[in-house]
């Protein structure tokens, strides 16, 4: 056992957070490339030797794992999709025997088989280390109490943050999601200084605190890591105001072992990808060709260190861009933008591509609008119609119908100017739009139900 970490022994980064693994996080780029190459070859060999699906794919593509040369890139390698994982349900993608797998997680899998992800003991340790990196970058360290309000169970958020928080030396409060009353009570009684949950739940907690007459300064929280669903910078500001904290972003997906693929440092200028363990590329979701640095496309990830279930060029469906520009925090790890949408969530409305995140950005610029809203897509006759449901709070509600109608028109015009399609605004009574304590349901596409 290594000695318990202390706050004083952590290295401070250039943005006021901590470096958990300074050597790895600040590895000079050429060395990082060599490390990635060596790990990529080992991963390909592992997959080729132990996963029949990959042996067939790599052999068909004529790829010799030991001979792969593309430095830091993986352009000739075959892709893996969620469908591949479903097709090999439950354990067909494992590179180890089931007996050597210490735990499994599953994606929600609302249709068909869930996606199963296996972990070796080393994978669990790696996961904990990557979450420790994340929390440390936010200035969380030994002595902090982490209120982990991610759901515990098959969802990776709960246990991932739990393992990482413990490794870092935090006191982890495994409260899981839900029960706002208890969350606020224990937060204050125990003096929780850090929190992790979905951004929509963070807003829900902020609302709960406000309803109980609690001001941000009444809450002991200092920092939070939020992820597992899309959120915007405007939502960040609302969370920061509502809870009186720094709100930072964490990215991951269960297929990659959960959260910890990428994380924000305190500069809040994109999420550092843990490139020593994940090889990230951006491709055009239509042509599957690489796009230039800084351009938005689909994030594709190859695991470099996972042993139970290596994945090669996994299509995340998340749309974002990457930058390799140095960051003031001192990490050399590339940064990804917040995902702006899902390549498979893109709504095609009367032939126009619409990302729900575009609608959210517009709504968040209108201060009167509560953070709870829903986008409802339907087909009337042969025409697609989009409605945005907004709750009418006291800030919107005046005295006359005219004021409400003016407000509706203002929002509709703003949406039109960004989306170039007509969107109908529907005003709803407060708290009539379903709140989620997990992932928020922002889009209801009724066209699929017809």
């Amino acid at each position, binding site marked *: 056992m290594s000695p318990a970490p202390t706050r004083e022994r952590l290295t401070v980064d250039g943005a006021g957070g901590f470096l958990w693994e300074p050597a790895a996080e600040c590895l000079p780029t050429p060395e990082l490339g060599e490390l990635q190459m060596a790990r990529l070859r080992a991963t390909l060999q592992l997959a080729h030797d132990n996963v029949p699906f990959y042996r067939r794919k790599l052999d068909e593509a004529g790829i010799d794992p030991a001979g792969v040369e593309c430095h830091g890139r993986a352009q000739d390698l075959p892709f893996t999709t969620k469908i591949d994982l479903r097709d090999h349900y439950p354990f067909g993608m494992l590179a180890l025997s089931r007996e050597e797998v210490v735990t499994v997680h599953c994606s929600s899998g609302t249709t068909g088989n869930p996606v199963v992800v296996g972990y070796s003991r080393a994978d669990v340790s790696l996961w904990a280390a990557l979450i420790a990196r994340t929390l440390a970058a936010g200035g969380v360290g030994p002595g902090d109490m982490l209120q982990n309000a991610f759901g515990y169970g098959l969802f990776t958020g709960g246990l991932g943050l739990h393992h990482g928080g413990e490794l870092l030396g935090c006191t982890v409060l495994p409260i899981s999601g839900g029960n706002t009353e208890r969350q606020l009570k224990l937060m204050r009684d125990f003096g929780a200084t850090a929190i992790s949950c979905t951004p929509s739940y963070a807003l829900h907690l902020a609302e709960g605190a406000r309803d109980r007459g609690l001001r941000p300064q009444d809450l002991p929280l200092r920092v939070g890591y939020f992820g597992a669903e899309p959120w915007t910078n405007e939502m960040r500001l609302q969370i920061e105001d509502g809870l009186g904290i720094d709100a930072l972003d964490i990215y991951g997906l269960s297929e990659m072992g959960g959260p910890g693929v990428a994380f924000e440092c305190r500069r809040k200028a994109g999420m550092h990808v843990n490139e020593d363990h994940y090889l990230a590329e951006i491709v055009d979701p239509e042509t599957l060709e690489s796009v230039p640095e800084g351009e938005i496309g689909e994030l594709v990830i190859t695991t470099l260190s996972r042993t139970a279930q290596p994945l090669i060029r996994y299509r995340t469906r998340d749309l974002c861009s990457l930058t390799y520009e140095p960051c003031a925090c001192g990490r050399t790890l590339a940064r990804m933008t917040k995902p702006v949408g899902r390549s498979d969530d893109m709504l095609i409305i009367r032939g126009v591509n619409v990302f729900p995140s575009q609608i959210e950005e517009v709504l968040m610029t209108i201060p009167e609008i509560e953070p709870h809203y829903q986008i409802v897509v339907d087909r009337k006759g042969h025409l697609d119609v989009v409605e945005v449901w907004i709750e009418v709070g006291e800030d919107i*509600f*005046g*005295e006359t*119908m005219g004021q*409400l109608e003016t407000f509706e028109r203002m929002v509709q015009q703003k949406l039109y100017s960004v989306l170039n399609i007509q969107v109908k605004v529907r*005003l709803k*009574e407060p*708290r009539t739009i379903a709140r989620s304590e997990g992932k928020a349901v922002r889009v209801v596409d009724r066209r699929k139900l017809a």
Partner: protein
Amino acid sequence: MKVTQLTVFLENRSGRLAEVTDILGREGINIRGFSTTEAAEYGILRLIVPDPERAREILHKEGLTTHLTEVVCVGVPDEPGGLARVLDLLAEHEISVDYMYSITFNYICFALHDIDRAVGLLEGKVEMLSNAEVGAL
């Protein structure tokens, strides 16, 4: 003399008005006057009640969005030309009526542009109710 009107935002779904009036009824709040506006999806319910602040508090707890507005409640003789006389007076002084509706007995509730000028104008010419008098109706 002015009266405080309670305004409520309501979605247009069946039974909603009944729910809201039930809540007020349970709390012993006697509605002395009301009007509704209509639109396809939502409407505004305007209420004249004793103790509008308390009524607002109750509805707020139920999660409803509300607003308080000052209006004038004027007694109008129940005879031909009774209402016209009040309206003529306002028109003469170019005070425009945003909306109006009758409340219990022979009173009319007016939302007016420039309400303070209207109060001064009507004072002594017609009967005007106070908040307390609305409660006692």
